[in-house]
């Protein structure tokens, strides 16, 4: 299970980074969303994994899943939502006021732009 989760974090991180390195605002924003999935799962896993443990207190339970990282992830999710909303709007503002959604100030020269 740990392997599945860790590799999922890896896949999400890699996808996020790859998309963040794209040249238009939209994929970059999607990339940041992926990074926030990745980091949320990462943060969650920092409390170690527990399957089929009661998430809520009860007398019968012997052990619980670690609640603290969950609370942290909740906070992180909300914050990254706020950030995503803002970056979407700023990107939109940039696109609407200059009709260009490149994230770089000018397209890179050299190995870039051959197809653009």
């Amino acid at each position, binding site marked *: 299970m740990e392997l599945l989760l*860790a*590799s999922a974090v890896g*896949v999400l991180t890699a996808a996020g980074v790859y998309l963040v*390195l794209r040249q238009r605002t939209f994929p970059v924003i999607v990339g940041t969303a992926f990074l926030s999935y990745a980091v949320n799962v990462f943060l969650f896993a920092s409390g170690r994994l527990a399957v089929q443990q009661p998430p809520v207190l009860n007398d019968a339970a012997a052990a619980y*899943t670690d609640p*603290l990282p969950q609370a942290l992830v909740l906070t992180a999710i909300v914050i990254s939502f706020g950030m995503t909303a803002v970056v979407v*709007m700023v990107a939109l503002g940039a696109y609407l006021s200059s009709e260009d959604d490149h994230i770089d100030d000018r397209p890179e020269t050299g*190995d870039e732009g051959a197809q653009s």
Partner: protein
Amino acid sequence: MSLFLIVALPFLGALLPGLMIRAGRQACGMVTFLVTLTAFLGLMTHLPAVMAGETVTARLDWMPSLGLNFNLFVDGLGLFFASLILGIGLLIITYARFYLSREDNMGEFYTYLLLFQGAMVGIVLCDNILMLLIFWELTSLSSFLLIGYWKHLPEGRQGARMALAVTGAGGLAMIGGMMLLGNIAGSYDLTVILQHRDEIQASPYYMPALILILLGCFTKSAQFPFHFWLPHAMAAPTPVSAYLHSATMVKAGIFLMARLWPVLSGTDAWFILVTGAGLVTMVIGAIVALFKNDLKALLAFSTVSHLGLITMLLGTGTPFGAMAAVFHILNHATFKAALFMSAGIIDHEAGTRDITLLGGLRRLMPVTFVIATIASLSMAGIPFLNGFLSKEMMLEETTHTTLFGNPMLVPVLATIGALFSAAYSFRYIVHTFLGPERDDYPGHPHDPGVGMWGPPALLVILVIAIGIAPFLAEPLVKTVTAAVLGGTAELPDAHLKIWHGVTPALWMSVIAVAGGIILLLMFKPLSRAWAAAGPPFAKAIFDAIIAMLVAIAQAVTGRLHDGSLTRYAAIFTVTVFAVTAHAWFSGGVGLPSRDALPIEPVPMTAWILLVTATAVLLRYHRNRFLALILMGVVGLVVSMAFAYLSAPDLALTQLSVEVVTIILLLLALNFLPRYTPVESTAGRRLRDGVISIGAGVGAAALIYTMMLRDFVEPSISAYHLENSYKGGGGTNVVNVILVDFRGFDTFGEIIVLGIAALIIYAITEALLSGPVRARLLNRPTEDVAGDAHPMMMVVVTRVMMPVVLMVGVYIFLRGHNEPGGGFIAGLVVAIGVVMQYMASGYSWASARQRYPFHGIIGTGVLVAGLTGIGAWFFGAEFLTSSFGYFRIPPFEEFELATAMGFDLGVFLCVVGAVMLSLESFSRLARRSDTEVNEYAMDIDPSRDDAPQPTGKEG
């Protein structure tokens, strides 16, 4: 008068000219004069004590921990220089009053002048080398202002910058040197440092300190190869040149070498560096001066040459050399100031300083002619003038000096320097005043008023007086020399007198004068040869260096900061990866201490879903809509994973946030292109792929390793589990952490959300109040389907929205004990409202919206905050919770916790923030050609039967 006051007077007085200029130029000049005079007289009150060999001190602690203190002292050397500075300052102030024209801002001029004067006085009187550094750099700064005083002249601006760059550079080097020196001596106080000659010269830091300090001195005193700034500083008004380059600025370096002479001199390094530099400077300066056609440039290079002479004398390290240096400082100040002022007069009256346009002025400007001639002859080293005396002493000293094992080197070079010195001095007289009168002077040359010729005349009287009766100056020179020697050597036995007998020095002097005359006679062919040789222009080199620096700076910073975020992000990722990997691999990883959980089929399926969706998204991310759908899949899988891993709160939050995020992105995609074009080359994609795989592998490896190991100590969450119910009144530990244990995080978090919404609103407003508005309104309508508000959706929403609100309330109320809480409830309610907006449209729904979303956000933050503050009234900390169980029939026993008030704030803030954001986006989408729909649904057959619409009610 207190030494503090003497130093402070020019600074305080600097405020006055600016104010007095409104009372007229006379008042302005007068007040400046009076300030300087007061300081001068104050200084003179210490004369008797100093002449008696005493040292007057004044101390004030500033930063004792650093050793930076406002300590002043005045001994012979300090008094000598301070008198020169203030005394010549008085003459310059007078002269400038008449020299400056009506267009010049005199208040500004005198302000700068006084600042400069204060800085100079500070240098020579201070007893703390850090303090000295401060005054040192202040002279650079104030001279920058003075040199650049004529702002409209490009030469002025360039000259000012060059002077600042060179002397500033030296000053910076000197900071290093002084700090080393202070550290060797254990104190930054000069008087203490001067006691530590042996420690200093034995220290390994002596060499770096010496070099750094000399760099400061040489740049300030225009020693080769740092001499080039000085001629360019001649773009300043002549009073400035006269002041800076005779008595003050350039003498600061000389002063410092003299001041530190007791501790720094006497070593081979000192001797070679200082004598060598001085000698070379003296010769080169003299040669260049001869061929300068600008009077002030000629004088400037002559100054360079004479400063070299003094430097060389200080470099010999002998008491006699020191005495000669002191004497020449005095003499040079007098004749050089007079010469600069006379050059200024010529410029002022004849309208040019170009020596080739002059000549024959002796009849037109007799007074000036006399003054300039006497001063020039003194400079040339003609007997019965003071310049002769000190030059004889110099030549005498050189005959005893052996450089690089060659006893002839120094005397010969010194003689050559003196020879050229005589030549350009004669040229100054001959080519300006002698010869036939011309009829093409740019101005109308005539003698100026006494205000302008008076000051140089006074100086010339001194030149003659000292030249004829040197014994008058002897007590002063000896006192000063004693101060320079600082008790490290005996005062030389020599006396200042005109006739020493027929010594080698006399012969050298004769050769110099005779050679000077011959050179002048041969001037024309020599001048042509000089021009043909095309000697390198230091300015060109300097400009090239600066231009190169600027070009490098622009290349480096411009190339790095070209606005390519993709590269910034790549650098960021690679840096993080590399540094973290280095840290990780240079440490140790203990053995795994936990067993891995088994891999079950359902999670495996979820993993496949996630990886496939992600992979396909990466492949087809250019189809933006598809990307959003795949993102929906990934978000769903992540939520399910949270649920599977016993974290239902997370699952709920992730789900609802996911949906709102998708809606936001869809709203944005409405305006954006639907496809991302292919822009990156395969190579670039490969690079990005490698970077991102690195990042992914890193993150995966990090978390995998940690998941199989235990905490170094048990986690603090054991406490949360233990006390969630007993102390926080809730069985949902996650929620109790959120609203109680770590409620402050949540407080910050809702504020983030609130701010996000405010920003989105503000941006919408900015866009809609700018040029974008028109473009948005008149966007072409695309091929869209009809039926914007389908009946089925509307009808279902009518039932569903209240149900969703109900669910929201339910999730809110149970959050403390079961998965849920204010945040999720807020999102659920917001999504319910969004449903309504989607069903009947923004304008229809918002017309029926009674509560401004801004207000809901504000209320939310206030409610949460006030709940926290409420605890204060019970003597508890912010956010301290309390709870109790109540029973009111017919309800069952229920729990009320203050944390619920806080959660209510969270709830409100979330609802307000989500709705304000979505609303802002949809406001952007309004086109000019769409009308506000009057009805909830576009198609409603019941309206056929009901003629009066009821849509507006409610």
